[in-house]
């Protein structure tokens, strides 16, 4: 059995990498970092129109290509490598995945075509640290619902045209759609100062915002869990892309910088750091690839595979990004050098969908490894 992405996925990778190298280089990334929406809408539309990236895993009925999580993962790996700044994570990894997994036809018909076409940006929001125990509240209001609570920091939520809120109901958690293309009564969104400027974060205040249920509140937990696992894998793939790029950066510098009459890569303190980074990158890659393969071909494995990737990939990326700064010396501490961009991405995405520690704890539960009773 081989869980490595096959030739088709690799072809897609080459196309996406070429596109990102042309339209989304460091110069562009840095320009977008300073803007409110963090990206160039023209590039966003091109990604949707010419490459079909937003709709890659969206069902063909809704204007997507119906590709598997393997292809999706490879795209996220490339986006992570490029530190792409647009609202792709919120729109595709979170919102489109939740809509797909919840399988509410009416909601899909309303929202997925816009996402696939590149017309709608979206995100998923929740209160507290775990979506499954979201502290947002949903109360019935006639045929609809009203949402209350505060969610922060939420990825890509500041300007999204569609918010999917996970909120508690008396029957258990539900998912509720809020159309934000026009003004929404009771909704306040505040842009936050993100540690990672390439990824926009917002605080979302909901004061009785009117919303439509997606799926049946109280019955969506299994589908939402699946969607979140897939999102964790997308994030893991991003982290693999970032970690691998950081390793390239480190090796390139170790092969050029000369001190004491030698390339610094010939010093073992540097060489061994690079070797350990290589092991970290390959470990992360194995877990991420295994995860996206499992999501597509062995769904029963998905929870463990996602937990493993979630535990391993953030650690690997954070470690590589950290060592890369040290390895570059003073230049690695400058704003001009890209090393800090990866460190900040690594540090913040480490918390985005659960810390490594939380993934390990969940994994322990799944493996039936007991807790110590107090």
């Amino acid at each position, binding site marked *: *059995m*081989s*869980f*490595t992405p096959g030739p088709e996925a690799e072809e897609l990778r080459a196309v996406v990498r070429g596109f990102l190298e042309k339209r989304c280089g460091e110069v562009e990334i840095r320009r977008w970092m300073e803007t409110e929406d963090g990206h160039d809408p023209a590039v966003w539309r091109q990604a949707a129109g010419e490459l079909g990236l937003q709709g890659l895993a969206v069902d063909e009925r809704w204007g997507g290509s119906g590709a598997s999580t393997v292809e999706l993962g490879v795209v996220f790996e490339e986006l992570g490598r490029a530190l792409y700044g647009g609202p792709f994570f919120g729109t595709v990894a979170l919102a489109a995945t939740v809509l797909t997994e919840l399988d509410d036809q009416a909601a899909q018909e309303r929202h997925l075509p816009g996402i696939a076409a590149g017309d709608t940006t979206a995100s998923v929001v929740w209160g507290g640290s775990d979506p499954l125990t979201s502290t947002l509240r949903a109360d019935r209001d006639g045929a609809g619902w009203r949402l209350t609570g505060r969610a922060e920091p939420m990825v890509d939520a500041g300007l999204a045209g569609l918010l999917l809120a996970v909120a508690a109901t008396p029957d258990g958690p539900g998912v509720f759609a809020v159309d934000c293309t026009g003004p929404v009564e009771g909704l306040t969104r505040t842009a936050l100062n993100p540690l990672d400027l390439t990824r926009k974060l917002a605080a979302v205040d909901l004061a009785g915002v009117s919303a439509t249920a997606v799926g049946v509140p109280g019955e969506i937990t299994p589908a939402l869990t699946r969607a979140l696992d897939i999102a964790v894998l997308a994030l893991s793939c991003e982290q693999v892309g970032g970690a691998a790029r950081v*390793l390239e950066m480190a*090796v390139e510098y*170790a*092969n050029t910088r000369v001190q004491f009459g*030698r*390339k610094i*890569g*010939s010093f*073992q303190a*540097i*060489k*061994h750091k*690079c*070797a*350990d980074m*290589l*092991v970290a990158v*390959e*470990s*992360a*890659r*194995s*877990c991420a*690839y*295994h995860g996206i393969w499992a999501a597509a071909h062995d769904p029963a494995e998905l929870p463990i595979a996602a937990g*493993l990737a979630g*535990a*391993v990939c953030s650690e690997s990326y954070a470690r590589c990004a950290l060592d890369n700064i040290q390895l570059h010396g003073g230049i690695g501490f400058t704003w001009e050098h890209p090393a800090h961009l990866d460190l900040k991405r690594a540090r913040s995405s480490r918390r985005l969908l659960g810390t490594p*520690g939380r993934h*390990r*704890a969940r*994994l*322990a539960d799944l*493996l039936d*490894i*007991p*807790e*110590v*009773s107090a």
Partner: protein
Amino acid sequence: MSTDLATVTDLVEKFLAEHPPASTDDQVLRGARFDAGLAYPHFDQGFGGLGVDPTLSPVVERLFLDAGCSDWSSRNVIGLGMAAQTVHTHGTPAQKTKYLRPLFTGEEIWCQLFSEPGAGSDLAALATRAVPDGDEYVLNGQKIWTSLGHMARRGLLVARTDPDQPKHRGLSYFLLDMTTPGVEVRGLRQITGQAEFNEVYLTDARVPAADLLGAVGDGWRVAMTTLMNERVAIGRRGGGRGDGPIGAAVRAYRKAVAEGRADAADRDRLLQLWTRVEAARLTNTRAAARAGQGAPGPEGSIAKLQFAELNKAVFEFAVDLAGDEAMLIDDYTFSRPGASSASHAAQDVRKAYLRSLANSIEGGTSEIMRNILGERVLGLPGEPRIDRDRPWKDVPRS
């Protein structure tokens, strides 16, 4: 590829029907298996193989083990893990015919006579001399750390045939009969109390020129085949998720919880180890699929490095969970194991812990693995060297 798998699986089933493991003598079965080409399916026909893809060989071995056949991988660890591949790659037809079959049946155990007191990581600095005399070579020198030397009928030996050449160029590779007069094996006691490895003294021992493996002076290249296979053999121990030492650690943790000896931090520490072990296992699976067609490359060092460091950490954890038992040991009685215990999880956990400390030394130290990954995989520059182009005899040694 998959048709190959089906064909091979079919062959194994037929073979097992004709030679039921329960009622067939082990050595007879292994001999017949060799003759049927099911010993090392990727080897050439006539030499224990069928010439199929190397990824099929572990599959076939698994089928035989599952059918209840005996496992020789620890008893003849060097023979099966390294000697067979090296002889198959570099041997003459006569050498392959002579050595491969008894190696596989277990009639002949092999050992590896590489390391010397003055040449460990820097293997190419070795000093054992081989001087031609008629159609023989005369050997003088000392080898050390020779695992299973006390059991071995044959040894993989690297010796210096030309001290005037730079160190890598003056070496030759021999297949040594360990019963040759002048070969003396003495046990060396390890920190576990046991003596798995040995010193081997060579005093005017004569080896026929016909037992040179590869050309005179080509010993380094042949030795590389052995070492690459060694790293893969050590790093890529098979098994599924949660098998091996990590499985033992999980059981030890459960027991500690039940007996009230664990604390909350232990669970996270266990999961940190578990995830790293599982990541390493998946990396090996990926590397094996990629390496499919060829000989193992320097990436084998990833597997070796991870295996060593994780094994040590896992056993350390298991000992920490043992409570006050961690201050005791079953015993240090001197013994001479008949099999390698390099990865054993079954025995006394404190002894397993002690044994694991050698994992980052044997088969190339972790520092050397990181050098290889840095230089051969990532392409970083080597260190400045004072020994490269000088005749071996002029290079300083400790």
